[in-house]
Each structure stands twice: as structure tokens, then as C-alpha cells.
């Protein structure tokens, strides 16, 4: 299962904040649509107003060909092309006053950024006023430029010429000349701006004599939209950054508190079942504080139970001593008293059983006496190399004489020639080595050697006891050093095994400021027990 830390989860949740800018954008779009609609209405109203000013003035709308405006000529040519030259040539004369009058009216109605033209019944442009381009476009702000690549800003740089189809194909113009006011939106020829136009018929009596067309770009609205989006984007980014930072900080804090608590809980109970009180967050008034208190409670219970178990052996041994003494003294008396031969056999058997009981008792006592002794023992400097060498000599003698199921063992020892100073108690180190070697000999494959190695580096002294044989099962590897844990199958005869040897060895290793652990040899040929002792305690 891949890890999915708290912070990542909160980051995902924070992404939900992205709905804010999206909502803002939608809102701006709605506003834009609304404004565009308003603009169209304004244009229509303007067209109507201008048309109204030109109503019932038939003489005004007679065609004039006086001006040589390129626009006009071009428009006419187009019209002729499109309509198949139906438009005939009319009287080119025109009343100069009428011309001036239209121009004056239009000038009065002139508005910045809209273009008004008056079209006659036969698609001739009679007058033109205004411009589509806005006078002073506001300079680009930094943000606008930055935004430019996201949203194309409105530009005044467009071709405002009337496109080929602008007039004739203009639906609004033809509709107006039919008598219905109409509106249209189109792109400029180069596609860089959008133009909204509205047309209104000019009535004379009940006949349409012409139309007024008002055009305007949507650039102003577009730039408003641009500014709004820019402000929205900046605001959203700032808010997003702030909130994300806050969430991240909060997540980090919680994550750290939990991790600290977890680390402390793991180390709070050491291998001996001693518990130190958890200090992290134990006074925090929230769920993590509660968790810490729960841990402390659970660990306390565990520690009490462990203490009870450890004291069990010593309590038992103490209690058993008196009844044992009763049995022993009775048997001794029986032995000395004059009894028929028949009972002697039973007496000897009882004595054998008693001897085994005593042996068990003394082993149980050994552990608890060691515990008591360790708490008051003095430490002194001694040479570990000498101790190990001496001990192995002893083992060679002791185990060499062993008979029966134990084949004579070979001992290999590797000890540095120089002294290895250790702070502790030499007797205890020897006792620990005794226990480890006893264990190794018991589990060694018959005929194989037991290796004892002592080595030291600048930080620690390492004592290893290796034996060839079956591997250590993983399940018991940690509990091997607990009191009264035995992994041996029942062996007939021999010394009863209580599982205290390794426990004692561990106590002594810890007394010397070190630790004891067991591993399978690489290659699986056997097991090694390694005690790492600190050089300075």
C-alpha cells in the first residue's frame, strides 16, 4: 500500500478552492453578456433617434453623388456589383443645403467610438459620421500584458473599413430598408475586433426612404471584461496562496505532532518492559493529547504486567524454598534412619527428584539475584580479551569431557592480542559468555565448532558467539531474550531448561551499556549471538 500522507490529502482538498476562480470567470462572462445586450439596445435606440430626426424629409434622402469619398465610391461599386447594377444612375445633382443639413444632424448626434451612416433606399451611402476607433486607449498594465497570452485583449488596431458584404449582405440594413429595425454583430475584415450594428428605417409617410445604421465595436466591454478577469485572477491567486500556505502549515503541524507521538511511543517501552512517560502532547487539549494519554495508560499497564511476570520467578523461588527444605530434611532423616532395603530405592528416587527441583530453583534464583546485584554492582576497568581467552580455555576443558549425546566440541577463539579495556564487571562478562556458549553448544550441529570472537572499534566492543546448526525462526527472535521463554523441544534427561540463560545474558549486556541480539548467519548455516558493549559507559 503506498503511503498517502496527511499533507498530500490536505493539498488535494485545497484544490477544491479552484472552484472560486472558475465561478468568478463565469460571473464575468454573464456580466459581459449583459453589457453586450445593453450595448445593442443602446445602438438600436440611437438608430431610432437618428431616424426620427430624419423622418418626413424626403428631399434629404435623394441621392447625391457629390463627394468623392473613397468610402462612398467603394460602397457604391460594391452595391452595384451585388445588386446587379439595378441601381440606375439618378440625378447626380444635389442640394448642397440638404447635404449640409444631414451632416449637421449627424454631427450633433455624433458619439465617440460609434459610426453612423445613412443609407438610401437603393443602398447608396448618403452620409457617414464618427469612427469605430476609440480615441485614447488606456495603456496596457503589466497585468494586462501578462494576461495577454491567456485572454487576447481588445485592440484598437483593426481594419475599420466596411467589408465587402458589410452593407449589402448586412441583414440589418436590408431589414431596415424593408421597414424593420434590426441589429447584427460581425467581425471586422481582419478579424481583430467585433462590431455591433443596429439599423432603423427612415419613414416618409408610410414608405421607407432610407435607413440609419449605427455601428460600434465591443472593445470597450471587452476591455472591461479583461480588467475584471485580471483583477479576479490576481485576487484568486493571492487568496489561494494564502489559504494553501495556511493549510500546509496546519497540516505540517499536525503531521509533526503525530509523528513525534508515534516515535516517542515506540521508544517509550524498552526491551525490558520499562516505560518512560510520554511527554509529547500529553497536555494538549485535543484529540492528539487524548491519544497520548491513552498510549501512556496502555504502556503503564503493559509495564506493570511485565514487572509482575519478572517478579514471578523470584517470588516462586522464595516460596518454594521452605517446602523443599521440608522434603529434603525428611529424606535425609529417612536415609540415616534404619530402614528396610525396600524403602531405600524409593528414598533415592525421591532424592533425585528433589535434586532436580533444587536445580530449577537455583536457576530461577540466579536471575532475580542477578537483577538485584546489578543495581548495586560497581563497575571497574578490566581487560575483556583476557577474560574471553581464559573462559574459552575453561570451555575446552569442561565441554571436552562431556559425554553421551554431546560429542566433543571444538572451540575456535579469535581475540585481539592487545588488551581490550571495558568498564564493567569481569565476573559478569564471564557469566554472560558462559550462558551464550552453553546455548551455542546445545544447538550446535554435532561435530561442528563453536566460534567465539572478540573485536573492538573506537566506539564499541563486539563479542560474537557463532554456532552451526538450524536457523532461528523469525517469530521468536525478539522474545528470545525475555524471561522464561524457551524454544527448545523437550529433551530427555539433562538439565531442565527454563529459558533464563539468554535473559541473564541480556541483563549483563545491558549492565555494560550495550545490547544483545541474535541473527541467522548469512547463508543460513547457523546462528550468531552478538553482544555490543560500549567502550565507555
Amino acid at each position, binding site marked *: 500500500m503506498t503511503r498517502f500522507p496527511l499533507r498530500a490529502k490536505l493539498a488535494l482538498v485545497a484544490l477544491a478552492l479552484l472552484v472560486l476562480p472558475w465561478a468568478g470567470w463565469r460571473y464575468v462572462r454573464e456580466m459581459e453578456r449583459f453589457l453586450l445586450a445593453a450595448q445593442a439596445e443602446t445602438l438600436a435606440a440611437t438608430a431610432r433617434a437618428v431616424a426620427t430626426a430624419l423622418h418626413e424629409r424626403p428631399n434629404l434622402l435623394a441621392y447625391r453623388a457629390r463627394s468623392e469619398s473613397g468610402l462612398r465610391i467603394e460602397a457604391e461599386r460594391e452595391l452595384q456589383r451585388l445588386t446587379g447594377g439595378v441601381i440606375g444612375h439618378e440625378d447626380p445633382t444635389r442640394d448642397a443645403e440638404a447635404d449640409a443639413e444631414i451632416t449637421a444632424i449627424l454631427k450633433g448626434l455624433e458619439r465617440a467610438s460609434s459610426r453612423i451612416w445613412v443609407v438610401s433606399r437603393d443602398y447608396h451611402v448618403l452620409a457617414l459620421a464618427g469612427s469605430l476607433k476609440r480615441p485614447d486607449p488606456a495603456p496596457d498594465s503589466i497585468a494586462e500584458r501578462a494576461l495577454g497570452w491567456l485572454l487576447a485583449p481588445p485592440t484598437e488596431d483593426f481594419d475599420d473599413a466596411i467589408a465587402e458584404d458589410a452593407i449589402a449582405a448586412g441583414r440589418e440594413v436590408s431589414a431596415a430598408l424593408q421597414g424593420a429595425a434590426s441589429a447584427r454583430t460581425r467581425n471586422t475584415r481582419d478579424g481583430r475586433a467585433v462590431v455591433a450594428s443596429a439599423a432603423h428605417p427612415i419613414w416618409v409617410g408610410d414608405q421607407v426612404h432610407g435607413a440609419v445604421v449605427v455601428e460600434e465595436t465591443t472593445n470597450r466591454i471587452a476591455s472591461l471584461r479583461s480588467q475584471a478577469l485580471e483583477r479576479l485572477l490576481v485576487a484568486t491567486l493571492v487568496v489561494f496562496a494564502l489559504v494553501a500556505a495556511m493549510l500546509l502549515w496546519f497540516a505540517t503541524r499536525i503531521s509533526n505532532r503525530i509523528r513525534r507521538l508515534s516515535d516517542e511511543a515506540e521508544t517509550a517501552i524498552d526491551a525490558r518492559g520499562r516505560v518512560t512517560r510520554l511527554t509529547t502532547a500529553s497536555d494538549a487539549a485535543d484529540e492528539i493529547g487524548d491519544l497520548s494519554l491513552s498510549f501512556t495508560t496502555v504502556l503503564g499497564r503493559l509495564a506493570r504486567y511485565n514487572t509482575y511476570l519478572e517478579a514471578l520467578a523470584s517470588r516462586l523461588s522464595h516460596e518454594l524454598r521452605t517446602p523443599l527444605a521440608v522434603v*529434603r530434611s525428611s529424606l535425609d532423616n529417612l536415609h540415616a534412619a534404619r530402614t528396610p532395603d525396600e524403602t531405600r530405592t524409593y528414598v533415592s528416587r525421591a532424592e533425585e527428584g528433589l535434586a532436580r527441583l533444587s536445580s530449577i530453583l537455583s*536457576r530461577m534464583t540466579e536471575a532475580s*539475584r542477578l537483577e538485584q546485584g546489578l543495581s548495586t554492582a560497581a563497575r571497574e576497568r578490566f581487560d575483556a580479551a*583476557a577474560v574471553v581467552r*581464559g573462559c574459552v580455555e575453561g570451555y575446552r576443558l569442561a565441554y571436552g569431557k562431556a559425554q553421551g549425546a554431546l560429542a566433543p566440541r571444538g572451540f575456535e577463539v579469535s581475540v585481539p592480542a592487545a588488551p581490550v579495556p571495558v568498564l564493567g564487571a569481569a565476573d559478569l562478562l564471564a557469566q554472560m559468555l558462559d550462558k551464550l556458549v552453553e546455548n551455542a553448544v546445545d544447538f550446535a550441529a554435532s561435530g561442528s565448532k563453536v566460534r567465539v570472537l572478540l573485536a573492538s572499534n573506537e566506539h564499541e566492543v563486539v563479542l560474537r558467539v557463532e554456532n552451526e546448526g538450524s536457523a532461528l525462526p523469525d517469530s521468536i527472535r525478539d522474545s528470545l531474550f525475555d524471561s522464561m521463554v524457551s524454544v527448545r523441544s523437550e529433551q530427555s534427561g539433562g538439565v531442565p531448561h527454563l529459558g533464563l540463560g539468554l535473559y541473564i545474558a541480556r541483563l549483563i549486556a545491558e549492565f555494560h551499556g550495550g545490547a544483545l541480539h541474535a541473527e541467522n548467519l548469512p547463508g543460513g548455516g547457523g546462528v550468531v549471538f552478538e553482544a555490543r558493549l560500549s567502550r565507555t559507559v
Partner: protein
Amino acid sequence: MLRRIAIVEDDAAIRANYADALQRYGYEVSAYGERRNAMEAFRSRLPDLAIIDIGLGDDSEGGFALCRELRSLSPQVPIVFLSAHVSDFAVVSGLRLGADDYLTKGVSLPHLLARIAALFRRVDALAESKPVEERIVRGDMELDLKRFSAQWKGRRIELTLTEFWIVHSLARHPGHVKSRDQLMRDAELVVDDATVTSHVKRVRAKFVVADPAFDAIETAYGLGYRWKA
């Protein structure tokens, strides 16, 4: 003359068994189950030797108190503690009060009898007007085998009977290594190795009190102990 031995032990079965064994051996035995009874009897007539259990009834240290009172009545009477406690602390406390030996309740009767016999021998040797001496001298140490006492550089070292036998076993053959088994046998004990170790440690500590430079008892790791030649 029959020697009189007093046993103070609250467990009836053990008391009876020990009394039977001692009587069979030829001693006169007075057995008491309580401290009060024993003290009254001591005040009227001192025993020749007292075997005291430390835990008497409800008082887990009643034996210590009894020992103190008996010692105040007579500085010479041999006193042997018998107890279920095996902790070093209990042993040291007992010995500080002036007991001659400390045994755990698992001790076999023959061993107990051997000790009693030796303690009586010591009393006799001390009482003789012209003391017959049997001494071993090893360097700065002098062992008096009749009085079961040891001297180091002329200063008397207070040793229990068990400890004396251990020192004697080591010093008899300086330079020879004695295993813990051998020391146990010589000290009339059947105990575990750790007990022997703690006995030797106590012996060393007693000598060191008299002479901080004491190092005559050497540990041969894995093998045992030896008296430095």
C-alpha cells in the same frame, strides 16, 4: 558432656526434622517456634549453639533481632542463620550482626552437621588455656585451623565458617586453580556457581577493608580462583 543446640524455626516440619537429625547425631536439642519463647529460654540458660530462622511468624526479620539479643547475652555462642532468603543483602545483614554462618534452607543435613561439628571444635580450641596451634602461613596471611580464624598482616579478619573453608581451600595450594565445584565441596556446600562467586566476593571485600591493596585471590576466568603464589 552433651552439647545443647537450640533451634528457632517457625515451620513445624522443618523444626522437627532438624531436631530429630541432631538428636540422632548425639546432641541435646531444644526447639522453639517463636522468638519470645526462645529468648526467655536463652535468658535462663544459654545454649551451646543456636540455629535461627530469619523469618519467624509474622516478623520477617525476627531472626535478626533474636540474634542481636543473644549476642548481647554471650559474645561466643556460635550462631547459624537459616533462611529462605538468598539475597546478598540478607546475608550481609545477618553477618554484620555477628552470626558465624549463613545457610539457605535447602542445605542438606549432613552439611549442616559438618558445620556444627566444626563450630564446636572452634569453641573448644578457643577455650583451651594452652592453645594447641595449627597454623598455615601464606605470605601476609595466617590461618588458624583450630580457631577457624584468619589474620592478614597481623589484623584479624572476621570470616564465617563457610568463608574460612573457602580461604583455606585456596590458600592451602597457592598458585593452583580451584574450580567452584571444588570450593563448594571444601566449604561443605551444594549451591550454584553464583553463590560461590558471591561468597568469594564477600571474602575479598572483607580483606580489602583491612588492606586496600589486597589482591591475593585471583580470578581465573572460566576456571575458578587461585591464591596468588
